[in-house]
């Protein structure tokens, strides 16, 4: 593929000069790089590296340890030693030879990085939640559209057969009109990095560019518990379990209802928070939403009565799906096959391959930007409802909160200087 690079740089011939990579002609390979290797980035890169026709040329991270480990994985894959390393994403985007980039960084960096990437003409595989604030989500969708880029969100459940089949059953009316949807998400905080309790303030380690890591978020002193992986539990960098999972199970709920580009009109909720420490995302939460057609969707974490996964409850029964679980009432529904003349949903058998296919044929991916924005929006609005303690009325068309200026303030965030959302 030949696409010019970032602003101000001359066009460079893409991966055609690079050898390797199976049977796909060099000129046909999708040249990729990754940003963020502290958590999901490494796993995403491994999945891409396993595909024919992908050439990984560079890695980018603010932590030298992650950076070197990622570069080592790439070099090992190709039996070479020339994977480029970057700490500054702007230098990476300025290479000019990339087709696409995989981004898996803390949420507070999603929008700035992603908009910068699409401005540089790159297609993006980006982790969920789409952005750290609702307004950022709209800005990112606009940018993806403006620059005609292919976007795939890491909502990979859409590429798993059971989830698609469950959605097709619901869409084809097997359980009748939907009366309620229950979305069960995880509660609490998980000690991914085994740094819980390591909240002693100390100078950042030399291998980490902490100043940039904090980036647009409010200044805060370094401690181990704040950064890698467990950043997710602090609302300055992540969104807790609610925002982490809304891009999975609520996304599936939307898919089954045909609400991919819709949104709720009312949202209210309540959360339970830690009493101290540096983590401030809810550990238990209950969010209720109401959609324009009267369908209520409940999202809950930490309430046993709401089963983990997505459950559509209809006039004639229910369908429930989760990772490794797919059940229905009546039970035989899960075995029913959708006929050729019924609604068949977009089928992707491999989330990463789907992205690469779409980079090639420029079709929409199975989890495009607008769809991810709409599912993330429900999480953002849930957080605002919890934060304000008020019932939020929302206009999904104009994406504005109705008659609540206080809540409206929470639709966006301020960036620490000098960071700014690009156009």
């Amino acid at each position, binding site marked *: 593929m030949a696409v010019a690079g970032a602003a101000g740089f001359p066009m460079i011939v893409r991966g055609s000069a690079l050898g390797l990579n199976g049977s796909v002609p060099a000129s046909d390979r999708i040249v990729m790089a990754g940003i963020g290797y502290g958590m999901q980035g490494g796993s995403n890169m491994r999945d891409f590296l396993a595909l024919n026709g992908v050439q990984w040329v560079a890695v980018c991270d603010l932590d030298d340890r992650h950076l070197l480990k990622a570069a080592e994985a790439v070099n090992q894959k190709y039996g070479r030693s020339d994977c480029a390393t970057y700490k500054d994403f702007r230098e990476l985007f300025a290479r000019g030879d990339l087709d696409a980039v995989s981004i898996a960084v803390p949420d507070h960096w999603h929008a700035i990085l992603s908009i910068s990437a699409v401005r540089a003409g790159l297609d993006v595989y980006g982790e969920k939640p789409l952005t750290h604030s609702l307004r950022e989500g709209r800005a990112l969708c606009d940018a993806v559209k403006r620059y005609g880029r292919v976007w795939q969100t890491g909502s990979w459940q859409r590429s798993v057969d059971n989830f698609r089949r469950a959605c097709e059953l619901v869409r084809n009316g097997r359980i009748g009109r939907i009366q309620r949807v229950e979305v069960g998400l995880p509660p609490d905080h998980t000690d991914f990095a085994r740094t819980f309790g390591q909240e002693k303030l100390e100078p950042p380690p030399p291998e980490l560019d902490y100043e940039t890591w904090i980036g647009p978020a409010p200044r805060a002193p370094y401690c181990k518990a704040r950064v890698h992986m467990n950043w997710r539990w602090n609302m300055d960098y992540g969104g807790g379990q609610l925002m982490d999972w809304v891009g999975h199970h609520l996304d599936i709920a939307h898919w089954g209802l045909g609400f991919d580009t819709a949104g709720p009109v009312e949202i209210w909720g309540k959360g339970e928070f830690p009493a101290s420490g540096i983590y401030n995302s809810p550990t238990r939460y209950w969010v209720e939403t109401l959609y324009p057609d009267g369908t209520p969707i409940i999202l809950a974490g930490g309430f046993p009565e709401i089963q983990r996964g997505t459950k559509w409850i209809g006039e004639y029964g229910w369908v429930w799906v989760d990772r490794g679980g797919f059940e229905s009432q009546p039970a035989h529904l899960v075995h029913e096959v959708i006929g050729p003349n019924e609604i068949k949903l977009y089928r992707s058998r491999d989330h990463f391959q789907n992205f690469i296919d779409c980079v090639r044929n420029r079709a929409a991916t199975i989890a495009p930007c607008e769809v991810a924005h709409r599912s993330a929006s429900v999480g953002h609005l849930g957080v605002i409802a919890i934060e304000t303690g008020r019932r939020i009325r929302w206009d999904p068309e104009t994406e504005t909160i109705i008659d609540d200026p206080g809540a409206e303030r929470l639709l966006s965030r301020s960036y620490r*200087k000098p960071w700014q959302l690009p156009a």
Partner: protein
Amino acid sequence: MKSSNISRSLAAYLLALAVIAGSPARSAAQTASAEASLDIILKELSTYDGGIDSAAFWRLRHHVHARLDSPAERRQCETKLLEFLATGATPQAKLAASRMLRMIAGDRSVPVLEPMLLAESTADMALYALQAIPGPAADAALLRALSATGGTTRLAIIAVLGARKNAEAVPALAEQLKGSRDSASAAAFALAEIGNEAACDALSASLAGTEATIRPVVSTALLKCAERLLAARDAGSAGAIYETLLDDPALAAPIRRAAMSGRISAAGNQAAANLLEQLQKPDPEMLEAAISMIVHVFEPGAIGPVCNLLPRLPERAQVQLVSVLTAYPREMTLPALLQAARGGTEPVRIAALQALESAGDASATAFLAGVAAKTRGAEQSAARSALARIRDRSADEAVLELLVAKPPDDVLSELLLAVAERRIFAAKGDVARLLGSDSSKVRVQALKALRTIGTPSDIPALLDFMLDAGSDIERTEAETTAAALAQKVANPDGRAGAVKTRLAREKDPGMRALLYGVLRRIGDDSALPLLRTALKGSSAAEVDAAVRALSGWPTAAARDDADLLARKSRDETHRLLALQGLIRMIGLQRHRKPEAAVAELKTASRLARRPEERKLILGLLPRFACPDAVDLAKRFLRDRAVQAEARAALDRIRTQLSN
């Protein structure tokens, strides 16, 4: 929403609130916040260092949140927080206070916050609050500060003016376009956010005179402005901006592509002509974006000229265009897609076959069956998928016609696959006749198709076929199909009826043994007495088949039979089969008291002489997590052959118990 839905949702919500309110951690914090005065909280907060000892921060948060709905109390909080910003509290404490102000501050806060903008150390705090304060007072303060600050603070103020869409700021921001690279970039993005006519004019005016490093930023800002103009139906002004950017060869391709797309969007009734012209230009940089524009520009009936371009485009563009054409009526696109599927390069052929899935109709079925028969890999997979999923009812009839037209065996097999995938029930008679085909491949495919479109009435014929089958593959397929059709009998106790009838007149022990295998696959518990009787028979083949059927029984109804066989059988193979079956069946009863299941597994473990069976038991234990399961798993820790499995089981059991 129906009233029952409302009440159900409301009940659940109230329950959730009750649970939350009852939480000890929450109630302690809330009680504390309610009781402590804001003065006390702020005093405690004043030494906050941003670390773990954040209880005061949480109390402040609760205190402020509890007062959000009361204007008077909000105002009181605002006053205290502003006073706090002037104290000697730590920067982290003041930052915490300013973030609360972000939610509640009004015009009264502006005079306090404005001076804070001038100091590097306090500017962020002031901006967090000021950005959210609506109204001209905050706007004016930010504008005043713009000229009084420098460095990163000025950049941040520029960004906030943009985020607030402050139209009054346009002249000042336009000035900043002439400043340093950083200021100019920030100002360009801010002007794009404001996006009014004046902002667009300022950006346009600066474009020509801007140094090369800033031009891309100003250009992207102009793209955003042009979108706003277009949305406001000022296509002329938007088009002019797009033309300017498109005509600048120095700009990077992403910007020029966006400008080209925008220009076509702004072209009104000339859009289709412009796009068609663009599609014919030998400019690969623009081609991709031009193809992406097709669906936005060409009406369904006008796509013909674009279809005609397909074979003339480069390979990658053909792949892209084929994908786009699926959005158009099939009568307009089908000839072009069929041509691409026949004559294109491999990637184009595959893309076209995939497109036929939605764009194909009955006329494509013969072609697709032929391609599926003669190709392999991705091309075959695409052809099969298209044949199965063509959304045209007459495609079913076309498949039926082809089925009886005596096509080559390879094609026939593909058609049978399509019959099953498409659920063509009307094909049953023809498919059944194909069980007599000379080709084993066709017979196997016919059996598979019958699995989907057959009914229980077909079981007797299938049993006959199975007993006469010349190969294990066909016998297994027939057995699977008979068992699958039996599952369609509504009454679970009637599913084995046809097999029982056949058994009643079958005398040959070998044949009877085969029929026991079908009973096992069906799992109709009413057939168990028949198998128990067979255990006592004189035919070794029948006894062996009965043991295998009971050991492999799909429900726990044969648990006692397996238990007995595991204890008493003198044949070691039968004993092991039964023991494995017993362990499996214990695992099937998931909803029992875990202690009862563990007790049975413990008994089974005494019969397990080989590590293989002990591993099966360990694999099941976490399913019945309880203290007894822990004890049983621990016993295996001393057994070297299963030590690793025992550790893994213990971990899983403990994890489940801790949850």
